[in-house]
């Protein structure tokens, strides 16, 4: 933090971070959390603090000063680069440039395929053949032979007529909703929906309705009303809710959508590699892939790369290819990644031991918390939800975890409602018992220290 921004920070003594009392530090972090809500920061906090509304950058100066103060505490975990290969143990460089080795519980690379020699081998030749960048959008000349081969494989494996690649998983979901729904339609979404679903629903201009998380009865109330309204209805749910720790009740949701004539889209982002006989997700888990109209997914989690896709009917895929803004106006992801993803899908399907080890780890870790007396429901996804509820201790708790060699991000408002703070502990196939036992001991100590147990 530079001297000239320090004076603009609202936390009083933050010019000298070392001098912060624990209470002042807690207050600073509480403020930081509130300011992550842009509506509050721009709409209320900036006017209260005399920010020049005529300069669009003035608010950024104030914000930068606060982030600088947070970094100065040494307990601000966001934005520290990983300087080693991804995996269960990583080396992280902190804000002072010190390197530390930690056990990773914040990566969505559940199966470790980002660092798997088999996926690396698959792309070596592709680099010489196709280069790095796609050079254009998918609808234009950014569409390579290996992109096409991956689309064919996705359609085949997910049991749909066709599939379409998007630059990211966020784009696949957001842009598909925005392209398919319009002002006369309704988009009905789960209350725990990821930002990409909310973004797409809002951009579509449709009437957006949400229903209580994973509650089919509440979904039906919305479907009844939607059926009486003009226009069509698109229901969007996630296969696995990694914050809530549960999976969509598709066995109830699918029949309801059929009953009321609504189309159903399932975002399998956190379910791919984790759920289903072959790792295809929650629709596969319930044997309902044929009944789901659109399956969306990302390659950035279990498949260890980046990019996203939707699989659906040929008509829908053709429509999206030309009318989804993210396909038309955004460059395709690098072709070499298409080859990596293609190999990763094979490994995910064939190497069942990978998913077996992941689930052994999930059960072992969740049981470890239960033995401490933590209230831990059945975990149905790849991340163990550790509910803390006390917003004010989260950042210092996470800082203590970091100091003890455990990397876990605090999940706080606005990602979860106020008072619902938690740690979302993402598991990996590659975690060993020693990694997990060490982390459990660290958590036991800190849950005691903060009076959570």
């Amino acid at each position, binding site marked *: 933090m530079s001297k000239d921004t320090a004076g603009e920070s609202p936390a009083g003594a933050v010019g000298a971070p070392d001098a912060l009392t624990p209470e002042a530090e807690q207050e600073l972090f509480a403020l930081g959390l509130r300011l992550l809500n842009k509506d509050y920061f721009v709409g209320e906090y900036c006017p209260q603090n005399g920010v020049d509304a005529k300069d669009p950058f003035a608010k950024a100066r104030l914000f930068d000063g606060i982030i600088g103060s947070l970094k100065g505490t040494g307990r601000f975990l966001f934005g520290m680069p990983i300087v080693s290969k991804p995996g269960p143990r990583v080396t992280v460089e902190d804000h002072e440039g010190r390197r530390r080795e930690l056990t990773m519980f914040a990566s969505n690379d559940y199966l470790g395929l980002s660092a798997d020699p088999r996926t690396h081998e698959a792309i070596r030749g592709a680099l010489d053949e196709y280069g790095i960048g796609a050079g254009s959008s998918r609808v234009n000349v950014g569409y390579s032979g290996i992109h096409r081969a991956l689309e064919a494989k996705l359609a085949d494996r997910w049991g749909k007529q066709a599939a379409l690649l998007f630059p990211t998983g966020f784009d696949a979901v957001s842009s598909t909703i925005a392209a398919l729904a319009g002002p006369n339609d309704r988009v009905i979404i789960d*209350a725990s929906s990821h930002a990409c679903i909310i973004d797409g629903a809002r951009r579509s201009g449709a009437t957006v309705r949400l229903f209580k998380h994973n509650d089919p009865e509440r979904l039906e109330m919305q479907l009844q009303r939607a059926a009486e309204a003009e226009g069509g209805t698109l229901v969007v749910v996630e296969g696995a809710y990694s914050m809530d720790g549960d999976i969509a009740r598709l066995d109830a949701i699918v029949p309801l959508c059929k009953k009321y004539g609504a189309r159903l889209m399932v975002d399998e982002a956190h379910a791919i590699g984790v759920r289903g006989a072959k790792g295809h997700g929650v629709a596969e888990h319930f044997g309902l892939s044929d009944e789901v109209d659109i399956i969306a997914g990302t390659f950035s989690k279990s498949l260890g790369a980046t990019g996203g896709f939707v699989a659906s009917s040929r008509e829908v895929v053709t429509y999206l290819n030309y009318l989804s803004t993210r396909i038309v106006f955004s460059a395709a992801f690098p072709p070499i990644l298409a080859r990596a993803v293609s190999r990763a899908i094979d490994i995910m399907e064939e190497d069942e031991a990978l998913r077996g080890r992941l689930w052994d780890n999930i059960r072992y870790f969740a049981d470890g918390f239960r033995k401490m007396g933590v209230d831990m429901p059945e975990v149905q996804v790849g991340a163990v939800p550790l509910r803390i509820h006390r917003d004010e201790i989260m950042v210092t708790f996470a800082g203590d975890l970091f100091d003890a060699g455990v990397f876990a991000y605090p999940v706080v408002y606005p990602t979860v409602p106020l008072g619902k703070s938690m740690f979302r502990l993402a598991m990996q196939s590659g975690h060993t018992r020693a990694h997990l036992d060490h982390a459990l001991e660290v958590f036991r100590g800190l849950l005691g220290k903060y009076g959570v147990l």
Partner: protein
Amino acid sequence: MANVDVVALFKRVASEVERKDFSNITRDTRVTDLGVDSVTMMEIVGMMEDELGIQIPDTKLSGLQTVGDIERVVLERL
């Protein structure tokens, strides 16, 4: 439309959503005393919008303290 009894509508929709008796609600009832979370409140308001054929921007919903505040926001859109 100006004669709509918004409080009565609120009671009926809230009861339907939460399956609880809200007959004691008045204009002065504080939203925080209803025992419904913010998601449920959005479901209730959405259903009221459907019944009345109106749309209330999300920005109008923050900071509402009482059922009377909700009534005021709804009446503004009628």
